[in-house]
Protein backbone atom coordinates (compact mmCIF):
# COMPACT_ATOMS: atom_id res chain seq x y z
CA UNK A 1 0.00 0.00 0.00
CA UNK A 2 1.29 3.45 -0.87
CA UNK A 3 2.17 5.50 2.17
CA UNK A 4 0.17 8.66 2.79
CA UNK A 5 1.53 11.83 1.33
CA UNK A 6 2.63 14.43 3.89
CA UNK A 7 2.14 17.81 2.26
CA UNK A 8 4.27 20.54 3.86
CA UNK A 9 4.47 23.00 0.97
CA UNK A 10 1.55 25.23 1.85
CA UNK A 11 3.46 28.48 1.43
CA UNK A 12 3.50 27.63 -2.28
CA UNK A 13 -0.10 26.38 -2.57
CA UNK A 14 -2.29 24.94 0.17
CA UNK A 15 -3.38 21.34 -0.18
CA UNK A 16 -5.76 19.71 0.43
CA UNK A 17 -8.57 22.17 -0.11
CA UNK A 18 -11.68 22.12 2.08
CA UNK A 19 -14.55 20.20 0.39
CA UNK A 20 -16.70 23.34 0.17
CA UNK A 21 -14.03 25.01 -1.99
CA UNK A 22 -14.07 22.17 -4.50
CA UNK A 23 -17.88 22.12 -4.48
CA UNK A 24 -18.01 25.87 -5.05
CA UNK A 25 -15.61 25.68 -7.99
CA UNK A 26 -17.49 22.87 -9.73
CA UNK A 27 -20.90 24.26 -8.74
CA UNK A 28 -20.55 27.34 -10.93
CA UNK A 29 -20.93 25.18 -14.02
CA UNK A 30 -24.45 24.07 -13.07
CA UNK A 31 -25.95 27.19 -14.65
CA UNK A 32 -24.86 29.95 -17.04
CA UNK A 33 -22.71 32.56 -15.37
CA UNK A 34 -24.22 35.75 -14.03
CA UNK A 35 -22.05 38.13 -15.99
CA UNK A 36 -22.83 41.70 -15.07
CA UNK A 37 -23.66 43.53 -18.31
CA UNK A 38 -22.60 40.62 -20.50
CA UNK A 39 -25.71 38.41 -20.53
CA UNK A 40 -29.46 38.51 -20.19
CA UNK A 41 -29.31 35.79 -17.50
CA UNK A 42 -30.75 37.24 -14.32
CA UNK A 43 -31.39 34.38 -11.92
CA UNK A 44 -27.89 32.85 -11.62
CA UNK A 45 -25.78 33.51 -8.50
CA UNK A 46 -23.53 36.57 -8.70
CA UNK A 47 -20.34 34.81 -7.64
CA UNK A 48 -18.12 37.82 -8.26
CA UNK A 49 -20.31 40.21 -6.28
CA UNK A 50 -20.64 37.74 -3.41
CA UNK A 51 -16.89 37.14 -3.30
CA UNK A 52 -16.16 40.87 -3.39
CA UNK A 53 -18.45 41.41 -0.40
CA UNK A 54 -16.99 38.55 1.61
CA UNK A 55 -13.35 39.36 0.84
CA UNK A 56 -13.98 43.04 1.73
CA UNK A 57 -15.54 42.00 5.03
CA UNK A 58 -12.66 39.60 5.69
CA UNK A 59 -10.10 42.39 5.23
CA UNK A 60 -12.06 45.04 7.15
CA UNK A 61 -12.69 47.03 3.99
CA UNK A 62 -15.86 49.13 4.00
CA UNK A 63 -15.93 49.67 0.21
CA UNK A 64 -16.18 46.27 -1.53
CA UNK A 65 -15.61 47.92 -4.91
CA UNK A 66 -12.08 48.68 -3.75
CA UNK A 67 -11.36 44.94 -3.74
CA UNK A 68 -10.01 43.97 -7.16
CA UNK A 69 -9.74 40.41 -8.43
CA UNK A 70 -6.71 39.37 -10.46
CA UNK A 71 -5.07 36.13 -11.49
CA UNK A 72 -2.49 36.02 -8.66
CA UNK A 73 -0.52 38.06 -6.15
CA UNK A 74 2.16 38.45 -8.82
CA UNK A 75 -0.42 39.87 -11.21
CA UNK A 76 -1.65 42.25 -8.49
CA UNK A 77 1.86 43.47 -7.70
CA UNK A 78 2.58 44.07 -11.36
CA UNK A 79 -0.66 46.00 -11.84
CA UNK A 80 0.01 48.12 -8.77
CA UNK A 81 3.73 48.77 -9.21
CA UNK A 82 3.61 49.52 -12.94
CA UNK A 83 0.25 51.29 -12.58
CA UNK A 84 1.64 53.50 -9.83
CA UNK A 85 4.67 54.41 -11.96
CA UNK A 86 2.45 55.25 -14.93
CA UNK A 87 0.20 57.44 -12.79
CA UNK A 88 3.14 59.17 -11.05
CA UNK A 89 4.53 59.94 -14.49
CA UNK A 90 7.99 61.08 -13.46
CA UNK A 91 11.08 59.31 -12.10
CA UNK A 92 10.87 58.54 -8.39
CA UNK A 93 12.68 56.67 -5.63
CA UNK A 94 11.32 53.33 -4.39
CA UNK A 95 12.23 51.28 -1.33
CA UNK A 96 11.95 47.57 -0.71
CA UNK A 97 13.92 44.95 1.25
CA UNK A 98 16.02 41.86 0.69
CA UNK A 99 13.24 39.71 2.17
CA UNK A 100 11.04 40.16 -0.86
CA UNK A 101 9.79 37.73 -3.46
CA UNK A 102 10.66 38.18 -7.13
CA UNK A 103 7.07 39.31 -7.70
CA UNK A 104 8.12 42.51 -5.91
CA UNK A 105 11.79 42.68 -6.89
CA UNK A 106 11.39 42.07 -10.62
CA UNK A 107 8.71 44.70 -11.37
CA UNK A 108 10.71 47.26 -9.37
CA UNK A 109 13.97 46.35 -11.10
CA UNK A 110 12.20 46.55 -14.44
CA UNK A 111 11.11 50.11 -13.62
CA UNK A 112 14.67 50.87 -12.53
CA UNK A 113 16.09 49.49 -15.81
CA UNK A 114 13.60 51.62 -17.76
CA UNK A 115 14.80 54.72 -15.87
CA UNK A 116 11.42 55.19 -14.22
CA UNK A 117 12.67 54.78 -10.66
CA UNK A 118 15.78 54.46 -8.56
CA UNK A 119 15.59 51.57 -6.15
CA UNK A 120 16.91 51.07 -2.62
CA UNK A 121 16.88 47.48 -1.38
CA UNK A 122 17.32 47.45 2.40
CA UNK A 123 19.68 44.73 3.55
CA UNK A 124 18.05 43.46 6.72
CA UNK A 125 20.05 41.68 9.39
CA UNK A 126 17.35 39.78 11.25
CA UNK A 127 13.99 38.43 10.19
CA UNK A 128 12.11 41.67 10.72
CA UNK A 129 12.28 45.02 8.95
CA UNK A 130 12.87 47.77 11.47
CA UNK A 131 10.80 50.92 10.81
CA UNK A 132 13.93 53.01 11.29
CA UNK A 133 15.59 51.12 8.42
CA UNK A 134 12.78 52.35 6.18
CA UNK A 135 13.00 55.84 7.63
CA UNK A 136 16.78 55.98 7.05
CA UNK A 137 16.34 54.89 3.42
CA UNK A 138 13.73 57.52 2.65
CA UNK A 139 14.62 60.47 0.45
CA UNK A 140 12.78 63.58 -0.64
CA UNK A 141 11.81 61.83 -3.87
CA UNK A 142 10.69 58.55 -2.28
CA UNK A 143 7.25 57.87 -3.69
CA UNK A 144 6.79 54.10 -3.29
CA UNK A 145 7.57 51.60 -0.52
CA UNK A 146 6.83 47.91 -1.10
CA UNK A 147 7.07 45.45 1.80
CA UNK A 148 6.12 41.81 2.12
CA UNK A 149 3.90 41.31 5.16
CA UNK A 150 5.10 37.74 5.72
CA UNK A 151 8.41 36.32 4.53
CA UNK A 152 8.05 33.13 2.48
CA UNK A 153 11.52 32.04 3.63
CA UNK A 154 11.89 33.21 7.23
CA UNK A 155 8.24 33.13 8.29
CA UNK A 156 8.57 36.55 9.89
CA UNK A 157 5.68 39.03 9.83
CA UNK A 158 6.46 42.71 9.51
CA UNK A 159 4.94 45.45 11.62
CA UNK A 160 3.08 47.12 8.77
CA UNK A 161 1.25 49.43 11.13
CA UNK A 162 4.47 51.06 12.33
CA UNK A 163 6.08 51.06 8.89
CA UNK A 164 2.89 52.26 7.22
CA UNK A 165 2.45 55.15 9.64
CA UNK A 166 5.97 56.31 8.85
CA UNK A 167 5.66 55.86 5.08
CA UNK A 168 2.26 57.47 4.70
CA UNK A 169 3.33 60.42 6.84
CA UNK A 170 5.97 61.12 4.21
CA UNK A 171 3.35 61.01 1.47
CA UNK A 172 4.77 57.89 -0.21
CA UNK A 173 2.53 55.09 -1.45
CA UNK A 174 2.71 52.08 0.86
CA UNK A 175 2.13 48.75 -0.89
CA UNK A 176 2.01 45.55 1.17
CA UNK A 177 2.38 42.06 -0.28
CA UNK A 178 0.14 39.88 1.88
CA UNK A 179 0.54 36.66 -0.13
CA UNK A 180 1.93 34.76 2.87
CA UNK A 181 -0.29 36.18 5.58
CA UNK A 182 -3.83 36.59 4.23
CA UNK A 183 -5.85 33.78 5.78
CA UNK A 184 -3.37 32.66 8.42
CA UNK A 185 -2.39 35.83 10.23
CA UNK A 186 -4.91 38.46 11.38
CA UNK A 187 -4.72 41.43 9.05
CA UNK A 188 -7.34 44.01 8.19
CA UNK A 189 -5.76 46.38 5.67
CA UNK A 190 -8.93 48.44 5.64
CA UNK A 191 -8.04 49.50 9.19
CA UNK A 192 -4.28 49.81 8.69
CA UNK A 193 -2.14 52.62 7.27
CA UNK A 194 -1.61 50.92 3.91
CA UNK A 195 -2.40 52.25 0.44
CA UNK A 196 -2.72 48.85 -1.18
CA UNK A 197 -2.66 45.29 0.08
CA UNK A 198 -2.13 42.29 -2.18
CA UNK A 199 -3.49 38.80 -1.53
CA UNK A 200 -3.49 35.49 -3.34
CA UNK A 201 -6.33 32.99 -3.51
CA UNK A 202 -4.49 29.69 -3.56
CA UNK A 203 -2.48 29.84 -0.34
CA UNK A 204 -4.03 30.39 3.09
CA UNK A 205 -7.39 31.55 1.73
CA UNK A 206 -7.72 28.00 0.34
CA UNK A 207 -8.86 29.01 -3.14
CA UNK A 208 -7.52 27.77 -6.45
CA UNK A 209 -4.36 28.74 -8.33
CA UNK A 210 -5.13 31.49 -10.84
CA UNK A 211 -6.85 33.77 -8.34
CA UNK A 212 -5.69 36.73 -6.33
CA UNK A 213 -6.43 40.36 -5.86
CA UNK A 214 -5.74 43.55 -4.03
CA UNK A 215 -7.31 46.22 -1.89
CA UNK A 216 -6.62 49.80 -2.90
CA UNK A 217 -7.49 52.75 -0.70
CA UNK A 218 -7.32 55.55 -3.25
CA UNK A 219 -7.65 54.26 -6.84
CA UNK A 220 -6.60 57.65 -8.23
CA UNK A 221 -3.00 56.91 -7.26
CA UNK A 222 -2.69 54.02 -9.71
CA UNK A 223 -3.42 53.92 -13.45
CA UNK A 224 -4.91 50.80 -15.00
CA UNK A 225 -2.30 49.03 -17.10
CA UNK A 226 -4.84 46.57 -18.48
CA UNK A 227 -7.73 47.74 -20.64
CA UNK A 228 -10.60 45.91 -22.25
CA UNK A 229 -14.19 44.78 -21.94
CA UNK A 230 -16.08 45.55 -18.77
CA UNK A 231 -19.62 44.59 -19.76
CA UNK A 232 -20.79 48.16 -19.22
CA UNK A 233 -19.99 51.55 -20.79
CA UNK A 234 -19.01 49.72 -23.97
CA UNK A 235 -19.23 52.91 -26.05
CA UNK A 236 -16.53 54.55 -23.93
CA UNK A 237 -13.17 54.81 -25.69
CA UNK A 238 -11.12 54.19 -22.58
CA UNK A 239 -11.15 52.05 -19.46
CA UNK A 240 -13.79 53.47 -17.07
CA UNK A 241 -12.62 55.17 -13.88
CA UNK A 242 -15.46 53.56 -11.96
CA UNK A 243 -14.41 50.92 -9.42
CA UNK A 244 -13.86 48.01 -9.66
CA UNK A 245 -14.03 48.28 -13.48
CA UNK A 246 -10.97 50.53 -13.54
CA UNK A 247 -8.73 47.52 -12.80
CA UNK A 248 -10.84 44.60 -14.02
CA UNK A 249 -10.91 44.14 -17.78
CA UNK A 250 -12.00 40.90 -19.42
CA UNK A 251 -14.14 37.99 -18.31
CA UNK A 252 -13.42 37.06 -14.69
CA UNK A 253 -12.37 33.63 -13.44
CA UNK A 254 -15.81 32.50 -12.22
CA UNK A 255 -14.89 29.09 -10.79
CA UNK A 256 -11.75 30.48 -9.19
CA UNK A 257 -13.49 33.43 -7.59
CA UNK A 258 -16.37 31.25 -6.38
CA UNK A 259 -13.74 28.96 -4.80
CA UNK A 260 -12.03 31.98 -3.24
CA UNK A 261 -15.35 33.04 -1.75
CA UNK A 262 -15.81 29.55 -0.28
CA UNK A 263 -12.22 29.48 0.97
CA UNK A 264 -12.59 32.85 2.66
CA UNK A 265 -15.78 31.55 4.26
CA UNK A 266 -13.96 28.45 5.49
CA UNK A 267 -11.19 30.55 7.05
CA UNK A 268 -13.68 32.99 8.61
CA UNK A 269 -15.68 30.18 10.18
CA UNK A 270 -12.56 28.52 11.55
CA UNK A 271 -11.19 31.87 12.68
CA UNK A 272 -7.82 33.32 11.73
CA UNK A 273 -6.81 33.55 15.40
CA UNK A 274 -7.57 29.86 15.89
CA UNK A 275 -5.70 28.96 12.69
CA UNK A 276 -2.71 31.01 13.81
CA UNK A 277 -2.54 29.55 17.32
CA UNK A 278 -2.84 26.00 15.95
CA UNK A 279 -0.09 26.59 13.39
CA UNK A 280 2.15 28.36 15.90
CA UNK A 281 1.86 25.38 18.22
CA UNK A 282 2.89 22.96 15.48
CA UNK A 283 5.63 25.31 14.29
CA UNK A 284 7.08 25.64 17.79
CA UNK A 285 7.11 21.87 18.07
CA UNK A 286 8.96 21.58 14.75
CA UNK A 287 11.43 24.33 15.68
CA UNK A 288 12.26 22.64 18.98
CA UNK A 289 12.57 19.15 17.49
CA UNK A 290 14.62 20.21 14.45
CA UNK A 291 16.79 22.46 16.62
CA UNK A 292 17.79 19.43 18.68
CA UNK A 293 18.99 17.43 15.66
CA UNK A 294 22.77 17.56 15.17
CA UNK A 295 23.65 19.04 11.81
CA UNK A 296 20.32 20.77 11.18
CA UNK A 297 20.47 24.54 10.92
CA UNK A 298 17.32 26.67 10.98
CA UNK A 299 17.17 29.98 9.13
CA UNK A 300 14.84 31.44 11.77
CA UNK A 301 14.00 29.80 15.07
CA UNK A 302 11.05 32.04 15.89
CA UNK A 303 8.83 32.37 12.82
CA UNK A 304 5.52 34.23 13.19
CA UNK A 305 3.76 32.14 10.54
CA UNK A 306 4.26 28.40 9.90
CA UNK A 307 7.20 28.75 7.50
CA UNK A 308 10.43 27.08 8.51
CA UNK A 309 13.54 26.90 6.36
CA UNK A 310 16.51 24.73 7.22
CA UNK A 311 19.61 23.01 5.91
CA UNK A 312 21.45 19.84 6.84
CA UNK A 313 25.23 20.20 7.14
CA UNK A 314 27.01 18.71 4.15
CA UNK A 315 23.94 18.37 1.95
CA UNK A 316 22.41 20.39 -0.86
CA UNK A 317 18.83 21.49 -0.27
CA UNK A 318 17.77 19.81 -3.49
CA UNK A 319 19.04 16.41 -2.26
CA UNK A 320 17.29 16.79 1.09
CA UNK A 321 14.00 17.54 -0.66
CA UNK A 322 14.56 14.67 -3.06
CA UNK A 323 15.08 12.16 -0.23
CA UNK A 324 12.15 13.53 1.77
CA UNK A 325 9.87 12.93 -1.20
CA UNK A 326 11.24 9.68 -2.57
CA UNK A 327 11.85 7.87 0.72
CA UNK A 328 9.25 9.42 3.04
CA UNK A 329 6.55 10.93 0.80
CA UNK A 330 7.08 14.30 2.48
CA UNK A 331 6.55 17.27 0.15
CA UNK A 332 8.57 20.42 0.84
CA UNK A 333 10.08 23.15 -1.32
CA UNK A 334 13.81 23.49 -1.94
CA UNK A 335 16.02 26.13 -3.52
CA UNK A 336 15.63 29.88 -3.44
CA UNK A 337 11.83 30.06 -3.14
CA UNK A 338 11.77 32.96 -5.67
CA UNK A 339 13.33 35.13 -2.93
CA UNK A 340 17.01 35.02 -3.85
CA UNK A 341 18.32 37.92 -1.76
CA UNK A 342 17.34 36.59 1.65
CA UNK A 343 19.22 33.35 0.97
CA UNK A 344 22.49 35.18 0.40
CA UNK A 345 23.14 35.42 4.12
CA UNK A 346 22.62 31.66 4.60
CA UNK A 347 23.45 29.63 1.51
CA UNK A 348 23.48 30.94 -2.02
CA UNK A 349 21.99 27.74 -3.44
CA UNK A 350 19.01 27.79 -1.12
CA UNK A 351 17.36 25.89 1.71
CA UNK A 352 14.57 23.43 2.46
CA UNK A 353 11.25 24.98 3.42
CA UNK A 354 8.54 23.36 5.50
CA UNK A 355 5.27 25.29 5.48
CA UNK A 356 2.11 24.21 7.25
CA UNK A 357 -1.57 24.94 6.85
CA UNK A 358 -4.45 24.39 9.23
CA UNK A 359 -5.07 21.09 7.42
CA UNK A 360 -1.79 19.64 8.76
CA UNK A 361 -1.60 17.52 11.88
CA UNK A 362 0.97 16.76 14.56
CA UNK A 363 1.44 13.36 12.90
CA UNK A 364 2.59 15.17 9.76
CA UNK A 365 5.13 17.07 11.85
CA UNK A 366 6.30 13.85 13.55
CA UNK A 367 6.83 12.13 10.19
CA UNK A 368 8.86 15.08 8.91
CA UNK A 369 10.98 15.25 12.07
CA UNK A 370 11.78 11.52 11.93
CA UNK A 371 12.69 11.77 8.26
CA UNK A 372 14.93 14.81 8.75
CA UNK A 373 16.58 13.15 11.74
CA UNK A 374 17.40 10.11 9.61
CA UNK A 375 18.70 12.27 6.75
CA UNK A 376 20.90 14.32 9.07
CA UNK A 377 22.13 11.07 10.66
CA UNK A 378 23.61 9.94 7.35
CA UNK A 379 25.98 12.92 7.40
CA UNK A 380 27.56 12.11 10.77
Amino acid at each position, binding site marked *: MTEPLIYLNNAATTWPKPPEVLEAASGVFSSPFHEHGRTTVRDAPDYIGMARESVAKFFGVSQPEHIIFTSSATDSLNLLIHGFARCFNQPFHAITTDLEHNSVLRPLRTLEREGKCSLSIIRTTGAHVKPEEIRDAMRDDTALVVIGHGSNVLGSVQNIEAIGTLVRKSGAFFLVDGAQTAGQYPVEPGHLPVDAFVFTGHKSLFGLPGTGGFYIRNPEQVDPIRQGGTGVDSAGKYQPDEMPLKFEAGTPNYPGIAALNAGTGFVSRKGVDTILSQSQWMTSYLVKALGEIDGVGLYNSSPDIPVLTFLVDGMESE*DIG*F*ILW*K*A*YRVVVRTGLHCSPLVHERFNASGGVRISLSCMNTMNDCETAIT*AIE*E*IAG*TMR
Partner: protein
Amino acid sequence: MQILKTNKFKRCVDGTVLKEYFVDEVVTRETLSYFEDYGKVKILENLKQPFFSFLKEEFFSIKGMVGDQTLYVRYHEEHFEESHVLFTTMIERWIPGELEN
Protein backbone atom coordinates in the same frame (compact mmCIF):
# COMPACT_ATOMS: atom_id res chain seq x y z
CA MET B 1 19.49 -1.75 -18.50
CA GLN B 2 17.32 0.06 -21.04
CA ILE B 3 15.84 3.55 -20.90
CA LEU B 4 12.07 3.23 -21.28
CA LYS B 5 11.08 6.85 -20.98
CA THR B 6 12.68 10.27 -20.66
CA ASN B 7 10.76 12.91 -18.76
CA LYS B 8 11.16 16.58 -18.06
CA PHE B 9 13.77 18.81 -19.47
CA LYS B 10 14.88 21.70 -17.38
CA ARG B 11 17.65 24.22 -17.92
CA CYS B 12 19.03 25.61 -14.66
CA VAL B 13 20.63 28.99 -14.13
CA ASP B 14 23.92 27.33 -13.17
CA GLY B 15 24.31 26.06 -16.74
CA THR B 16 23.16 22.51 -16.09
CA VAL B 17 20.41 20.52 -17.76
CA LEU B 18 18.20 18.13 -15.80
CA LYS B 19 16.59 15.03 -17.24
CA GLU B 20 14.63 12.22 -15.64
CA TYR B 21 14.93 8.67 -17.00
CA PHE B 22 12.72 5.70 -16.27
CA VAL B 23 14.64 2.45 -16.80
CA ASP B 24 13.57 -1.18 -17.10
CA GLU B 25 15.51 -2.44 -14.05
CA VAL B 26 15.59 -1.30 -10.45
CA VAL B 27 18.88 0.17 -9.30
CA THR B 28 20.57 -2.29 -6.95
CA ARG B 29 23.83 -2.18 -5.00
CA GLU B 30 25.24 -4.33 -7.79
CA THR B 31 24.25 -1.63 -10.30
CA LEU B 32 26.01 0.95 -8.17
CA SER B 33 29.16 -1.19 -7.97
CA TYR B 34 29.13 -1.24 -11.76
CA PHE B 35 28.67 2.57 -11.87
CA GLU B 36 31.85 2.90 -9.80
CA ASP B 37 33.83 1.89 -12.88
CA TYR B 38 32.78 5.21 -14.42
CA GLY B 39 32.80 7.67 -11.54
CA LYS B 40 32.27 8.30 -7.86
CA VAL B 41 29.29 6.69 -6.14
CA LYS B 42 27.98 7.74 -2.74
CA ILE B 43 25.27 5.84 -0.89
CA LEU B 44 23.38 7.20 2.10
CA GLU B 45 22.24 4.28 4.27
CA ASN B 46 19.94 4.25 7.29
CA LEU B 47 17.14 5.98 5.45
CA LYS B 48 13.76 4.46 4.81
CA GLN B 49 15.14 3.77 1.34
CA PRO B 50 18.87 4.24 0.57
CA PHE B 51 19.78 7.28 -1.53
CA PHE B 52 22.61 7.24 -4.02
CA SER B 53 24.47 9.81 -6.02
CA PHE B 54 26.94 9.34 -8.83
CA LEU B 55 29.38 11.89 -10.15
CA LYS B 56 31.34 11.83 -13.39
CA GLU B 57 33.28 15.05 -13.01
CA GLU B 58 32.60 17.65 -15.71
CA PHE B 59 30.13 15.40 -17.52
CA PHE B 60 27.08 14.41 -15.51
CA SER B 61 25.74 13.40 -12.12
CA ILE B 62 22.94 11.00 -11.22
CA LYS B 63 20.82 10.72 -8.15
CA GLY B 64 18.16 8.24 -7.19
CA MET B 65 16.99 5.72 -4.65
CA VAL B 66 18.25 2.15 -4.38
CA GLY B 67 15.35 -0.09 -5.42
CA ASP B 68 13.88 2.53 -7.73
CA GLN B 69 13.66 2.66 -11.52
CA THR B 70 14.03 6.42 -11.93
CA LEU B 71 17.35 8.18 -12.50
CA TYR B 72 17.66 11.95 -12.18
CA VAL B 73 20.54 13.13 -14.33
CA ARG B 74 22.16 16.56 -14.39
CA TYR B 75 24.38 17.42 -17.34
CA HIS B 76 26.71 20.34 -17.90
CA GLU B 77 25.10 22.08 -20.83
CA GLU B 78 28.34 22.74 -22.69
CA HIS B 79 29.14 18.99 -22.70
CA PHE B 80 25.57 17.79 -23.12
CA GLU B 81 25.97 15.78 -26.33
CA GLU B 82 29.03 13.77 -25.30
CA SER B 83 27.78 13.43 -21.71
CA HIS B 84 24.45 12.09 -22.89
CA VAL B 85 26.21 9.51 -25.07
CA LEU B 86 28.41 8.52 -22.13
CA PHE B 87 25.40 8.20 -19.80
CA THR B 88 23.32 6.08 -22.17
CA THR B 89 26.29 3.87 -22.99
CA MET B 90 26.97 3.32 -19.30
CA ILE B 91 23.33 2.47 -18.63
CA GLU B 92 22.80 0.23 -21.61
CA ARG B 93 25.96 -1.76 -20.99
CA TRP B 94 24.77 -2.77 -17.56
CA ILE B 95 23.45 -6.33 -17.41
CA PRO B 96 22.24 -7.53 -13.99
CA GLY B 97 24.39 -10.42 -12.73
CA GLU B 98 27.37 -9.34 -14.82
CA LEU B 99 29.56 -8.55 -11.81
CA GLU B 100 29.20 -12.11 -10.50
CA ASN B 101 30.75 -13.57 -13.67
